């Protein structure tokens, strides 16, 4: 996160992590399509000729939050990155992950990809540790993508898995744009809650913390209600608070 008090700006970095070909870039493309032109910049993709992400993709979002009373409000700049999923790009993944404020883990719902999902998650955890970040403290949501395919883990299985886990879980078929906004808002909700709790951002910028997400949704041209979007979460804890040790 970067805070610029003079310019009344807060910059967040969100990272979409996950195994190769799980649909991280597709999530970003869909998000790009689903949001208003005014709220976003160009989608920057750095890919090789066979459409595989080489370094990363980046989608910048820019949202203005009106201030309460006489406060001029603030600008929330969000940069969403994807990491290259292929195993050989380990160094790049670590570099992209640097300074992340929140992570959406894009998993592939196909049963055959179960091990790749797990391996990529362990890779994420190791990279976070290497970067000196505590995986338990970082806002993290999980998306089970490719719900439109055959031979996938069933809804019941995912709900059962999600109810046992800590991280909020969303279902998506990013290609059709389903579940993409839900995942993004879930992640933004957790990230904002954590950073606001730590730095009293809303108080210092003079904005209403509860109004931030609805304002973001309006500016992004999202017609759905934020609570509806967050309601798509099928398990885990969206408040992000770790379970008290017993």
């Amino acid at each position, binding site marked *: *996160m*970067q*805070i610029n*008090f003079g310019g009344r700006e807060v*910059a967040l*970095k969100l990272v979409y992590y996950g195994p190769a070909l799980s649909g991280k870039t597709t999530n970003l493309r869909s998000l790009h399509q689903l949001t208003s032109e005014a709220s976003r*910049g*160009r989608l*920057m993709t*750095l890919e090789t000729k066979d459409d595989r992400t080489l*370094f*990363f993709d*980046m989608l*910048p979002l*820019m949202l203005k939050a009106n201030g309460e009373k006489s406060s001029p409000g603030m*600008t929330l*700049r969000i*940069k969403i*990155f994807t990491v290259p999923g292929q195993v050989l790009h380990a*160094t*790049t993944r*670590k*570099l*992209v992950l*640097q*300074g992340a404020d929140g992570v959406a883990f894009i998993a592939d719902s196909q049963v055959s990809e179960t091990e790749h999902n797990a391996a990529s998650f362990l890779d994420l955890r190791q990279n976070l540790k290497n970067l000196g970040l505590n995986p338990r403290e970082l806002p993290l949501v999980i998306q089970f993508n490719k719900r439109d395919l055959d031979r996938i883990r069933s809804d019941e299985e995912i709900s059962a898995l999600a109810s046992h886990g800590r991280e909020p879980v969303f279902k998506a078929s990013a290609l059709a744009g389903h579940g993409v906004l839900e995942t993004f808002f879930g992640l933004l909700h957790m990230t904002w809650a954590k950073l606001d709790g*730590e*730095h009293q951002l809303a108080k*210092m910028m003079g904005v209403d913390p509860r109004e931030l997400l609805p304002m973001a949704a309006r500016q992004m041209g999202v017609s759905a209600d934020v609570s509806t979007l967050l309601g798509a979460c099928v398990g885990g804890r969206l408040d992000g608070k770790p379970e008290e040790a017993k």
Partner: protein
Amino acid sequence: MSVDIPDVSADDLLLDGRIRLEDLVDREGLDELCKSFLALFGIPVRIYSTDGLLLADAAGEQELCAYVNTTQAGRHACASTVGAVKLRDAGDSGDVVHPCFTGAAYRILALEYDGRRVGRLIVGPFMPANVTQAPESLLGIDPGIAKERAQKLLERMPRAKAEAVTRIATHLKASLDLILFSGHKALVTSKMHLASVTESYRQLEDKTARLQEAFDRLKELDRLKSNFLATVSHELRTPLTSIIGYSEMLSEGLAGEMKPEQGEFVKTIHENGQHLLALIMGLLDLSKLESGTMRMKMRAMSVAPVLEEVVATLTPTARKKEVRLEIDVAPDLGQSRGDPERLRQVFLNLSENAVKFTPAGGSVTLRARTVREKLASGADEDGLALLAPTRMRLQVRVDDTGIGIPPRERDKVFDPFYQVDSSSTREYGGTGLGLSIVKRLVESHGGTITIEDNRPTGTSFVVSLPYTEPGPSEMPQQS
């Protein structure tokens, strides 16, 4: 109120805070772009960075401006207008009009990238469509201004409606935005590339350092081991000499006649003493070979007498085991360089092993001949005709018809103390040092040793030594 502002610049490569126009665009290219707009629409265009740096300038002087500048007051007024335009901010809306006393106007537009202002675009001067008559502010600026001339030149100024200028500016901004995006993408990519390379390099250096450390430690351990072996074997040999010597004297009756049973015991002490000595000598040889302190007495020598001596030594043992021991040396075999004593040790060891592992009725054959070194496939090497003769090898094979060595064990048998089947130590005896010493001795002759199948059954140890065809002066003297 103290605020905890995290340190972001150092560890975050990608949230690049401030993007500067001048970092992303090529200035000459930008200048050309502006000139193409001037050529297309006839309206001057300038681009300034946020710091007020002129990045591109496509503005030929208008005739009216040149005329005004011929008068003193006109020159002053023109300079002050141009100066004001240069400094004027584009305002909150990012689009303001700055009028000129001549009736012309400038449009000042904010250039934005990634939601931030990165510079200003100044379009003009141009004559707004509604200004058709030379205004009083122009005519009254200096007595030297002639009305007719001013009016005539005013009509020649580039004209544009406000909407047209907006369209031109929008188009220019869109083109520029694409250029900035491409530039930014290239910048980010190269930064990322550099960071990846740096990180990979750092990881490699880390790994290399760790490997070097481990290597140094192992080298030191190896040196300690060799020292230890040398010391220990030397110290062990001293008392052993007494044990062997005195038991030998006892069995020879130098201290009086012994009962047959006593004689047997002393003989066992003597034999095992000899065995222990052989083991210790082997260790000593090995440690000398490993530490490189073994001294070879290299000289021109024939291998045939060495092999004959080996066969003579082993014949009694072979006969006892009912193993045929044969020798087959090519008749034209000349001399090569080597230490005959060490080579005898090599072939004695190999032949002893062969006899040991060959069952009754089998055979062990020692063959010696010269061979041409195998050339790489294709063999289109330069100067082959000159080089090939230097590639002769003296090959000595010890072929047996014994139990054979499985292919995957063939590299390991040369490791010290390694035996294919540890039970074979008990069955066949031996120290497990012989072959490791043999290999090192052969290597210190510049040779190689390999194991091949001896069809239909058995093993061939193939020793290949450097060999130079004897020149006239080196021909063996005796017939």
